[in-house]
């Protein structure tokens, strides 16, 4: 199955700093939250999530998610990426460090002792653009 391409017309929105991620919980209730992300052409769209967070639990229960980005300069111009997720452990913080460097933050300083992180890769199944 060929990879779904991000349309060139809205590719710049993946240069923004913050996206929102919508997930569904095991009880059928959605969650939507702002988060940091990393996108590159080789690895695609990836997130670093602390395993104690609700969104991580939701993705474990239901591996489908929607990532949404609004153009900060024009809220009527948006990029919606719907997809399934692949979750892998990041016990060494190898990916968390890459993501943290984008934002000038050491993600270890955010996490509590004993907590761990995973790398979540979003595999797009549908992309919608507006504006």
């Amino acid at each position, binding site marked *: 199955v060929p990879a779904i391409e991000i349309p060139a017309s809205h590719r710049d929105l993946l240069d923004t700093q*913050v996206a929102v991620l*919508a997930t*569904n919980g095991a009880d059928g209730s959605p969650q*939507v939250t702002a988060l940091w992300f990393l996108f590159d052409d080789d690895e695609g769209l990836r997130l670093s999530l602390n395993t104690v967070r609700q969104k991580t639990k939701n993705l474990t229960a239901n591996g*489908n998610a*929607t990532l*949404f980005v609004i153009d900060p300069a024009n809220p009527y111009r948006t990029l919606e990426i719907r997809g399934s997720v692949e979750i892998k452990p990041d016990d060494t913080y190898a990916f968390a460090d890459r993501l943290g460097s984008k934002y000038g933050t050491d993600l270890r300083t955010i996490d509590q002792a004993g907590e761990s992180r995973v790398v979540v890769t979003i595999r797009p199944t549908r992309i919608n653009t507006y504006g």
Partner: protein
Amino acid sequence: MELDEIKAETTRLSNWAHLATVGADGNPDVVPVWPAWHDDKVWIFVHADSVKVRNIAANPNVAMHWQVDESGDGVELWGTATVHGDAETKGRLWNGVFTYSLDDFAPDGPESDANCFIAVAPQRALALKQYGMAGRDTWRAA
């Protein structure tokens, strides 16, 4: 934290919020909306044939997130949604509740069946400072 504080924080953060609903396929849908608080509920003006209206008819559980500011402050909210297309509700909300003119988006006015309102009765909210790194406060309905 009190609901009035959640209202004030959402108003401070942004006119815009994201609304997440659950699709018929069990997957999340998220769209940007421009809501307004009224009678301790969040109201959203929508097209009656929109995906979010269909989703809410099947599953009334929704979540919202007010767009973060530059510091990363934000508000997440969970609630139960209902859809209102009746004349009384439209007459009550059409003028003076939203911070934009509904007529600009619905020139046929409140009499048209093409538009309606979503009301979200909040059950729980979370106010985050700097993405939660600088603290978080919660509110729950009694």
